[in-house]
């Protein structure tokens, strides 16, 4: 990462989020660390239950404090968030950091107009009057590309289409010009043509305001479009991290290989079967020992002494690039060469 500051804008260190449930302790996030510089986008990829959403709810302090145990540190612009008081977090939420959720219809109140919902955050953090908040809401709607914003501001969410609701959510998140924007699968429920519009919008807004974005998705295609850096999560841990170009061109972890092999492309071969990852994601109540991916990994037997099952691989990051896997670089190169050869035949 090319941060000019001594300290990255957002820094998460050894974050652990454990929930106690009737069945036992769910280790949703288990030792996650990453940094995010100003004006950059970090893409977090992973399947359901990999801990990507929990990580971000914890950053915002939206977890239930009674049943959740959070360890590690989250610093935003030098301020520690883990253990911060509710009033401190309240001042930051919606103001310095904001979130866009996946399901816009469920995240908007059906009883209040769009304008009121956007203005509410603004009034709370700036003390603006109702009239000023309305003007601000209209300006925000215009900025996110809603036609006739001065009329649509008085509409209710059900009068908006899916894409427009997502735009309204973005307007709401950006109303106080936050420095950190967390987008949790913001385009998953949308059609591809609308998804493309929303991603362009986020990119434009980021360029204009220098917002840092954490973009959570399960779609590597979306990552390729929007992210600067990529973090691949599996079973509550980071298995691979690096600049987007490197992770997509020369992926290092067998799980990332599996994800890429599972996805059909618009120009790849059609008459060969896809190469899925066998099995299904691990239970976080009782995660596998050692590397959490080893029961599904085709390369676990390539490592000497059953280390994959007994020893948890350490994530070593050098210059923002690294992976958590016992395979040696030599073995990795061999495999990739074999694969390229078999594709060529």
């Amino acid at each position: 990462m090319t941060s000019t500051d001594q300290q990255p804008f957002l820094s998460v260190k050894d974050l652990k989020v454990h929930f106690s449930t009737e069945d036992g302790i769910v280790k949703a996030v288990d030792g996650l660390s990453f940094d995010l510089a100003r004006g950059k986008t970090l893409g977090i990829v992973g399947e359901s239950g990999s801990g990507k959403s929990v990580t971000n709810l914890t950053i915002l302090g939206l977890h239930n404090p009674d049943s959740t145990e959070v360890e590690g540190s989250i610093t935003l612009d030098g301020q520690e968030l883990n253990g911060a008081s509710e009033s401190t977090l309240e001042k930051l939420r919606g103001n310095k950091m904001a979130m866009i959720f996946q399901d816009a219809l469920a995240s908007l109140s059906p009883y209040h107009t769009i304008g009121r919902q956007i203005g509410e955050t603004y009034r709370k953090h700036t003390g603006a009057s109702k009239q000023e908040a309305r003007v601000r809401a209209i300006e925000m709607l215009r900025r996110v590309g809603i036609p006739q914003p001065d009329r649509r501001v008085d509409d209710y969410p059900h009068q908006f289409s899916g894409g427009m609701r997502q735009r309204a959510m973005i307007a709401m998140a950006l109303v106080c010009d936050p420095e950190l924007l967390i987008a949790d699968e913001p385009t998953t429920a949308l059609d591809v043509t609308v998804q493309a519009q929303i991603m362009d919008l986020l990119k434009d807004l980021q360029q204009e305001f220098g917002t840092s974005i954490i973009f959570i998705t399960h779609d590597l295609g979306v990552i390729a479009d929007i992210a600067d850096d990529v973090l691949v999560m599996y079973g509550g841990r980071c298995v691979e991290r690096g600049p987007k170009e490197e992770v997509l061109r020369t992926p290092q972890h067998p799980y990332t290989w599996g994800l890429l092999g599972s996805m059909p492309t618009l120009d790849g071969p059609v008459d060969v079967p896809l190469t899925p990852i066998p099995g299904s994601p691990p239970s976080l109540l009782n995660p596998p020992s050692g590397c959490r991916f080893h029961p599904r990994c085709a390369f676990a037997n390539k490592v000497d002494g059953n280390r994959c099952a007994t020893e948890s691989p350490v994530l070593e990051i050098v210059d923002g690039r690294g992976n958590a896997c016992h395979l040696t670089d030599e073995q990795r190169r061999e495999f990739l060469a074999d694969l390229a050869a078999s594709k060529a035949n």
Partner: protein
Amino acid sequence: MSSTSPLLDVSGLTKHFPIKGGFPIRRTVGAVQAVDGLDFQVAEGESLGLVGESGCGKSTTGRLITRLLEPTGGTISYRGQDITHASRRQLAPIRSEIQMIFQDPYASLNPRQTVGKIISGPMEINNINPAGGREKRVRELLEIVGLNPEHYNRFPHEFSGGQRQRIGVARALALEPKLIVADEPVSALDVSIQAQVVNLLQQVQKDLGIAFVFIAHDLAIVRHFSQRVAVMYLGKIVEIADRDDLYGNPRHPYTRALLSAVPEATVDDTPRERIRLEGDVPSPISPPSGCRFRTRCWKATEKCASEAPPLVQVEGNKAGHLTACHFPETQETVPAPRLSKDPETAA
């Protein structure tokens, strides 16, 4: 398309859902034109992909073919027999030949029934007693879809999403159907599990020679699965062609825009050409006059507003490649296929 009569022949298929309103007497005040005049055929053993965005009528089409909905107009014939308005009794023998796989593997399996009961359900209803008994057949089916036959007595909640979808596939296969309508069969699944189910369906299609109508919004998965693909927009087919023609030489502006909007997990030095459509899909209650895509099309003229373009083989198309557009795209405007497609090749 072969010269022999197709397995499924759909012509002019229309479904309008009435909108009731008014007081004190409720009357029909309008209609949602969900599907409006579809023509297509499915040959035996062939897989036809139906793609389009939400609200384009692809799921309605699937439900019309399986006769879960009553068509408003047009005809559906199965093996030459008109089933458009066939009664339950007339449909009974055909029902076992046309099966469906649903999107949501959590909602489409009865939580109170064991897997064995769920899969043998279709056999019970149709009073079919395979040699060796129903249980033996269910165990065979479980094996075909890659589940452990010992799981016969388990309940759906004991399975993961991907495994549940396999149960749904086994149920669809129970009566040895000739045609399976799969409505978004993998979109509720995680990426790594999606590939497992797609491979399973493909294997089933090849081994058992079952024809598929594969409904999905994911263009890459449809391309992987279907030999022929129809693109729908607002209740109409705008383009239908063999897979390679459609993806390699899209003639309808909507097809091209749709293809260019798909994000792909590759990093290119030369970014792909992007077409950004403005706005949203119009309401199917009062669709635009003429060509329904014209409100979002960058080439639309007055002709597009006054005259609906027919679905025909426009100049430059191969046989079987039909496009409904007054001003079709030409080969030159299609971006050249990109070379680096696998991350491995760059390694």
